[in-house]
């Protein structure tokens, strides 16, 4: 039972980070109908920038985090302006390929600057685990969970009440109607990309604190695909719920099935879930299926 609880807790924590990264993913999909396959590289870049600021420049963690978020926000704006805006009316495959190309470009850049070896964050959180009943939780996990929850809450409020949030929802709902009501669609797109980049960076910093940073971290960009498919590509609550479900299932598969098949199933398991979901309920738990007119 303790083992089960331990797996559950680590699943919830990893799942919360998935939820955060998936949030950025869904935002972009809602705003511009684009599948952002460069998300993993955004995570990677955020993590590396923060690490460099903390270790090389000796900045305090919170300052470094703030600077990282600023830099990543600018990166998001830049990416939208240079790569995505010229492709505004391009077919789906062009946009997907553009983000794949962007991912390659950023990955190449990261490898050139930071190399391939794993780097570790200095201990920012105390090492002594906190006990809840029988379950041991390391403070990093606890803090990650708290930060993610706070951010998710903040974004929910932002979308619900702020003017920009409402504008973003309007653009996601109907681009032309939003534009005709005087919403500056280009600005909304730019800010969407900036936010997506920022949440990816937060996910990267948290993951980096848990596992250390190396180039394979960008795999999370693909792992969140099952999350958004489960939740529904266009649903923010779906991304959050899906993140937790996939995180927990993946952790359980890693704990219970992996020893039986000799490892590696943990990474593939979410994709098996994807195929099942797509067969049974193609638009996910909360997604909107479309009606089509010719």
């Amino acid at each position, binding site marked *: 039972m303790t083992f089960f609880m331990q797996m559950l807790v680590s699943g919830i924590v990893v799942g919360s980070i998935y939820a955060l990264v998936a949030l950025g993913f869904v935002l972009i*999909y809602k705003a511009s109908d684009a*599948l952002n396959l460069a998300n993993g590289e955004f995570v990677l870049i955020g993590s590396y920038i923060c690490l460099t600021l903390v270790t090389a420049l000796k900045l305090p963690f919170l300052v470094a985090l703030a600077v990282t978020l600023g830099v990543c926000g600018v990166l998001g704006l830049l990416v939208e302006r240079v*790569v995505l805006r*010229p*492709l505004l009316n*391009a077919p*789906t*495959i*062009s946009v*997907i*390929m*553009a983000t*794949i*190309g*962007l*991912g*390659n*470009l*950023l*990955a*190449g*850049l990261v*490898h*050139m600057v930071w190399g391939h070896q794993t780097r570790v964050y200095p201990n920012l959180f105390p090492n002594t685990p906190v006990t809840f009943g029988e379950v041991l939780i390391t403070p990093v996990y606890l803090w990650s969970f708290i930060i993610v929850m706070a951010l998710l809450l903040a974004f929910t409020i932002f979308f619900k009440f702020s003017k920009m949030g409402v504008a973003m929802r309007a653009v996601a709902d109907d681009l032309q109607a939003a534009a005709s009501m005087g919403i500056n669609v280009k600005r909304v797109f730019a800010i969407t990309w900036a936010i997506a980049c920022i949440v990816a960076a937060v996910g990267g910093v948290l993951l980096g604190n848990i596992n250390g940073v190396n180039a394979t971290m960008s795999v999370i960009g*693909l792992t969140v*695909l*099952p999350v958004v*498919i489960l939740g529904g*590509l266009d649903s923010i609550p779906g991304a959050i719920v899906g993140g937790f479900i996939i995180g927990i299932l993946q952790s359980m598969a890693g704990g219970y099935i992996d020893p039986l*098949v*000799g490892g*590696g*199933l943990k*990474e*593939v398991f979410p*994709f*098996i879930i*994807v*195929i099942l979901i*797509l*067969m049974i309920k*193609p*638009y996910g738990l909360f997604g909107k299926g479309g009606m*089509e007119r*010719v």
Partner: protein
Amino acid sequence: MVSLEKVEWKGCEDVKNPFVMECGNYKTRYEKDMAIFSIKRVKIRMLGLAILAFLFPLLADNYVIGLATLCAIASIGAIGLNILTGFTGQISIGVGAFLGVGGYTSAILTSTLGLSFWVALPVAGLITASVGALFGIPSLRLKGLYLAIATLAAQFIILFVISRWTGLTGGTSGMVLQRPSIGSFSLMSASSYYYLCLIILLFTIVYALNLFRSRTGRAFLAVRDRDVAAEIMGINLFTYKVLSFAISSFFVGIAGALLAHYTMIVSPELYSITVSIQYLAMILVGGLGSILGSILGAIFITLLPVGLGFIMDYLAVYMPDMQNTLAAFQELAFGAAIILFLIFEPGGLAHMWSNIKNYFKVWPFSY
């Protein structure tokens, strides 16, 4: 009154000079419009090109022939993918794994079961086609992005099966293959294997060109342009989407088998998602929905790292530590190439080529 039937517009068909372009559209019959070679001169030019491709190994060294072989194999795979993605509009991010299915099928048939390569090659194509059709079934309900993710899932699942089914595939250590042989003559030399790949590529090209003159090919185009409308016009979406997956995967499987016998080794990491992305890049850079584009794109993407390697060698004289970042630089350039093509030439190399041709059609009197 002269009936249109009797007037045979010849245009500039009588001109003997093989370099003169066709200076207008003079087609008066449907058959002429559907012909692969619009005028005789084009046929002669294409034959000339094919002969050049056959004579080329006599002049080149083994390294260059090796590159040409890789280009030919990649072209077969790219044409296969283009049939699915460019002509039928179904996005697939799982080509890498399908190449793997082809390669591993051939490896198992020849190395484990001891069958001849000439049996294994078509069987590899057929098995890949059936796996492709299996993963194509969701395409009936899924479109665009959802389908892309389903094929991505196929990529991971197939690779997982390959690397864990140790009894059949040798697991992560892979399998060793032999070059094929005709009677006692083994196709061990670079040029003989090049000829094999070139001949199969020619068959692939002819098949693909003819496919899009048939009902099936036109149905694929209709599905791409608007699948709901196509269904209303009497095209069975399920049949044609799955058929497109099968035909496309067949060629990808053939390419996979050829590649496996060329490198003489198969192992799971040779078929990662990077390969899928490279193939997608080929058809995008070359031109979606263009056979010529598939070939040009395959050549471009295959030669890109080689060309960059040359540049890096040149730069290494001035910046010695640049050599360490070669792989990263290639990745960066690859990404940049995709983005630049998408933004500045969405039609790809095939469109560039037709622009050049159009410019010279009425050159130098272009106004």
